[in-house]
């Protein structure tokens, strides 16, 4: 609040005083009052007025500075109406009251939105859980069907049926993966509410994921080797989802003879899991953006199936779990995805003993 602005705001009051002063001076002059006395009266009047304005200015300035400071430090600025400093001015009170009422409606709207979102997320989750039952049903039907027909392989129709069932299983696995992505996306905002950190055998997790995707991997002539003796502390289902996404990426951008390597390396305070492929790799200029939402890059555009969600989700989930996720790649040679799991110093100490 500048003094000039304050004076401008009080210009009507100043004008009133000046005209009153002029009228009084004129009246006194007509009645034959000495000019020197009139001047003295006017000077005194101005002094009192000036002092009054000065004090008012300081008070208002202090009031608004205080309010501005409160606003700046507030966690939720829309609650300002509740915490404004006290004031005896009528206008302040009226404004404050209006501010409160307006904020209340904003808060109500926010709550309504939060509720709607919560409801939406809950429905989404329950839907995902429901859809999983038929997905499981299809997968079991295919598996049992293949077992039932594979006994007599000589028949060419049997082979046809086998291929058909395998293709259905493959498509079913894709559905499963997309459904999982929805679920994890819905939950990614609140990772902290939904994890169960346990000592986790990465080797076992990778075996499970490779087993789950084996039809797709075999179809693409993938070879893999796993050497992950180091244990980490993390949530099993989140980490298997992340590793699954990384494997699917490697398959999407594969070379003619794809090979996957999984290995862990233990440092003083961390364990790093590397998922290495010999696929197309990532262009250096696109490297900084691969974890962005919706980024598909030139690789992704060549492969029409890229959604730009996979790595974005991985990064988001990793952030929530305290895992650092980074990528190294040489274009045309392959890609390494590095997952670094922290180890607490306590664990390191006991392990060293």
């Amino acid at each position, binding site marked *: 609040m500048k003094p000039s602005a304050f004076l401008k705001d009080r210009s009507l009051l100043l004008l009133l005083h000046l005209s009153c002063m002029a009228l009084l001076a004129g009246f006194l002059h007509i009645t034959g009052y000495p000019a020197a006395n009139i001047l003295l009266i006017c000077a005194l009047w101005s002094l009192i007025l000036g002092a009054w304005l000065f004090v008012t200015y300081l008070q208002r300035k202090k009031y608004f500075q205080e309010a501005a400071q409160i606003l700046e430090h507030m966690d939720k600025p829309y609650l300002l109406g509740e915490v404004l400093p006290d004031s005896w001015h009528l206008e302040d009170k009226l404004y404050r009251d209006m501010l409160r009422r307006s904020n209340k409606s904003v808060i109500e709207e926010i709550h309504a939105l939060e509720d709607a979102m919560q409801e939406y997320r809950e429905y989404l989750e329950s839907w995902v859980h429901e859809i999983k039952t038929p997905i499981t*049903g299809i997968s*079991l039907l295919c598996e*049992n069907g293949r077992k039932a027909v594979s006994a007599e392989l*000589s028949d060419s129709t049997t082979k046809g049926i086998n291929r058909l069932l395998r293709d259905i299983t493959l498509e079913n696995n894709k559905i*499963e993966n997309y459904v999982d992505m929805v679920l994890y996306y819905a939950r990614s905002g609140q990772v902290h509410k939904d994890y169960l950190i346990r000592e986790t055998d990465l080797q076992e997790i990778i075996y499970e994921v490779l087993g789950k995707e084996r039809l797709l991997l*075999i179809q693409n002539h993938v*070879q893999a080797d796993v050497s992950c003796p180091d244990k980490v502390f993390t*949530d099993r*289902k989140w980490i298997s989802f992340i590793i699954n996404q990384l494997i699917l990426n490697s398959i999407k951008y594969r070379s003619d003879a794809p090979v*996957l390597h999984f290995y862990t390396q233990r440092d003083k305070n961390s364990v790093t899991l590397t998922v290495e492929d010999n696929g197309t790799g990532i262009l250096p200029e696109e490297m900084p953006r691969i974890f962005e939402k919706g980024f598909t890059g030139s690789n992704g555009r060549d492969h029409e199936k890229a959604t730009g969600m996979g790595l974005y989700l991985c990064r988001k989930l990793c952030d929530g779990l305290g895992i650092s996720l980074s990528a190294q790649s040489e274009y045309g040679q392959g890609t390494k995805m590095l997952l670094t799991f922290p180890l607490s110093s306590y664990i390191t100490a006991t392990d060293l003993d």
Partner: protein
Amino acid sequence: MHYKILLIEDELLLRKELTILLENAMYQVIAPESYRNAPEMAVSEKADLVLLDVNLPDCNGFDLCTGIRSATDIPVIFLTARTDSMDELIGILKGADDYITKPYQPALLLARIGAVLKRTAKGRTNWEATLLSHKNVTLDIAACRLSCRERSLDLTKTEMKILHLLFLHAGAFVARTNLVEYLWENHIFLDDNTLSVHVTRLREKLRSAGLSDFIETKRGMGYRI
């Protein structure tokens, strides 16, 4: 001696297909339609393992688990579509031995069941044969060795698994894709071409032991012993 599994699942299709899957894997399955008295049934049927769905209409799998636990200490595996950590934690606290989320991979499900049974079966003899014979040739799975008359051959893990599947289907052709899938299920992740390399090497080994043409190849069909 076959293990007996009590399957509690409300979904008709899943119950039927799971029963087939488990029976194919040489388990004896009891899949009752009503499951209210599951704890008593587990005891009276002398089940070796209970597969328990969490989301049952009109009653809760967790409560059934509590009931089973208070009656007997047979292993329980939860099957569930819910993936909350909270549910998983409750499952563990209720005394479940494992917790498998839908959609489960059939191979994975069988592996988990096998692992739990192996861990919990006390004093039971392993009914799975470790010695397989065909045409005077014996495969010793535990020792990873093939023997024919007085001669014996040491096998690599991959070669042993290849022979294992062929022995299990002795006399019939085993398709290459089935062989690759079997290897993947056993944590050997190789592709079709590498399989050919391994089979060629295995043949060479067999020939040196005087067993040429033990493995028969038919184009487009696969292998047979």
